[in-house]
């Protein structure tokens, strides 16, 4: 009986999450597009719903809500469904939509997308070989095999995003890094842009007039037809056409220049707006916040290095350590069990909420930046795949932040993975990502001012 009640609670919350994912899709991601494929929307919302349910089950675990056997059952079921989606459905549909875009393969869409999926599965399987993630006593088709590989990909993604985010956040918040842009710079660049456009126009006018004259004179098309045509055009090319190809090349170069000038002007306008924003109250608040974040970022990089160099994985979670410190050093006595449960709930809750929010915001920005009306379906499915893998590996890593009595369910359900490996892998990738972001931002920052500054 209690199992039914528990199940209905979980299912209701799943439906709620599904609705939230649906709304997010419609209002945020696809608000400028016409949704034509409901399959994509359903898949995205389902992935989101099941990922959030996993987090919800962790919270229930900490709070002791619901029967523990029904929790375990739902864990298993949830995990199976998510793995099914991430490994079978989403890659297949990604392949299907990619193939639909290519007109040649339109007839045998399903066949080719199956082929793509098989290739994906092959590489996915090969991924597990170089990593020491499994104990050898597991069979081929067990949950552990799939989860370990999904975990590797997800942890890599998480670490890359964290590393870049940790460095980029202070860089964008602090006004110390803002380049000085004046109105004259912008005007000068705009003038150059318009001049380039005028040059393009005058060259195109010449081409158009020359072509018209050739056409009126009765010349055949420049395009060589057939084998002899090609030979002829090599040996005897009319002087007019040679001129044309030269002008056409100049036009291509000028068009490339105009594109670059356009992008630089956009960049300057954006910087100018940021300068104005930094003078407001909100801007100053973010500036101060940026200093805190830079300290935090340096500390995290330092800790990651220490972890790797000294080959140390934290044995205790922050909650228990915090409580130990307060009890031992500060002499404050309180009920350890009671407080550890609540504090870890709050801590884990904050981690979950901020990571979901951060991921959704990043996904939205990324989606706006690169999608077009043709590729939007493929990109949304890719984002759903990334989101699913990210959430699964969050569960893996969150195990570290919880006291041992709550870790058991994760260990039970996920099997005997080498969790320590994942933490080490996270540290390595985080370090690499943070350092290369610093390098990249430094180069970009250095290179930009030299181009625009008026001497």
């Amino acid at each position, binding site marked *: 009986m209690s199992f039914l009640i528990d199940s209905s609670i979980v299912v209701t919350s799943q439906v709620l999450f599904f609705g939230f994912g649906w709304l997010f899709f419609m209002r945020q991601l696809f608000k400028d597009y*016409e949704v034509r494929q409901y399959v994509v929307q359903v898949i995205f919302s389902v992935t989101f719903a099941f990922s959030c349910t996993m987090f919800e089950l962790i919270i229930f675990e900490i709070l002791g809500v619901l029967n523990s056997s029904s929790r375990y059952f739902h864990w298993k079921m949830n995990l199976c469904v998510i793995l099914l989606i991430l490994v079978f459905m989403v890659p297949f549909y990604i392949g299907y939509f990619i193939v639909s875009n290519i007109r040649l393969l339109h007839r045998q869409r399903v066949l080719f997308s199956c082929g793509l999926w098989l290739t994906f599965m092959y590489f996915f399987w090969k991924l597990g070989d170089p990593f020491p993630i499994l104990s050898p006593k597991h069979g081929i088709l067990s949950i552990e095999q799939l989860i370990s590989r999904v975990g590797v990909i997800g942890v890599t993604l998480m670490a890359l995003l964290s590393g870049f985010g940790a460095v980029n956040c202070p860089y964008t918040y602090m006004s110390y890094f803002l380049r000085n842009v004046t109105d004259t710079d912008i005007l000068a660049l705009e003038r150059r842009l318009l001049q380039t*456009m005028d040059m393009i126009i005058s060259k*195109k*006018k010449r081409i158009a007039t020359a072509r018209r004259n050739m056409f009126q004179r009765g010349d055949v098309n420049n395009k060589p037809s057939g084998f002899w045509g090609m030979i002829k055009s090599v040996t005897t090319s009319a002087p007019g056409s040679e001129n044309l190809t030269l002008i056409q090349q100049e036009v291509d170069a000028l068009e490339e220049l105009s594109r670059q000038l356009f992008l630089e002007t*956009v960049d300057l*306008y954006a910087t100018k707006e940021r300068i104005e924003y930094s003078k407001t109250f909100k801007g100053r608040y973010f500036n101060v916040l940026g200093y805190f974040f830079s300290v935090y970022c340096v500390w995290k990089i330092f800790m990651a290095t220490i972890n790797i160099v000294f080959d140390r994985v934290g044995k205790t979670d922050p909650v228990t350590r915090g409580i130990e410190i307060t009890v031992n050093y500060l002499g404050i006595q309180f009920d350890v069990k009671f407080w550890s449960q609540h504090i870890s709930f709050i801590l884990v809750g904050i981690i979950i909420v901020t990571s979901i929010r951060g991921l959704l915001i990043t996904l939205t920005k990324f989606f706006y930046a690169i999608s077009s*009306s043709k590729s939007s379906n493929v990109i949304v499915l890719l984002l759903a795949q990334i989101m699913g893998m990210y959430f699964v590996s969050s569960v893996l890593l969150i195990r570290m932040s919880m006291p041992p009595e709550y870790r058991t369910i994760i260990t039970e359900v996920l099997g005997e993975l080498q969790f320590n490996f994942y933490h080490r892998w996270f540290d390595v990738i985080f370090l690499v990502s943070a350092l290369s972001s610093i390098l990249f931002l430094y180069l970009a920052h250095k290179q930009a001012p030299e181009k625009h500054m008026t001497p």
Partner: protein
Amino acid sequence: MASLDRVKVLVLGDSGVGKSSLVHLLCQNQVLGNPSWTVGCSVDVRVHDYKEGTPEEKTFYIELWDVGGSVGGASSVKSTRAVFFNSVNGIILVHDLTNKKSSQNLYRWSLEAVNKDLVPSGVLVTNGDYDREQFAENQIPLLVIGTKLDQIHEAKRNEVLTRIAFLAEDFNAEEINLVIEKRYFIRDGSQIVGFPDRKRFGAGIVKNLHYD
């Protein structure tokens, strides 16, 4: 070239509606084989004989400025785009017949082009409702083109066409007496229907230019 002979026409619309293909078709008389994103603005030139066959025949170069991007973009992009909207003689608004959003966005595009003097963030006063009076004093001729008609299934075409019917009226596009709305088959070059209509459109714009 004296500035009197310059005819500048903007081609505006959402990304992916077919502006670059349209411009290429008009200027090169060929179908664009590999369309890709337009970054910034791409220009093409069409030679047009105004009033062909009459003693007042004059050759004009119509510059078609194909401005890329989305109407809901960052304000820095909008400010940069405003640079292209100076001294415009005509505007072509392109929308995708298979995509309702692109037709709705035409209002915002036209506002952005006509109100180029205002700060970009302050343009959208009424976000959905459309104020005809803003276009009452607009002297710039407008043409609305719907693309990709061939991609709509035969049965649904009537429904789509009736929906579009009022679109051009809203823009007060009667200033062009000859051509208000034409749909082109972009994919298949052999179906270039309405070739003389395009010439008449060009004449319409140039005629307005002479009236100013």
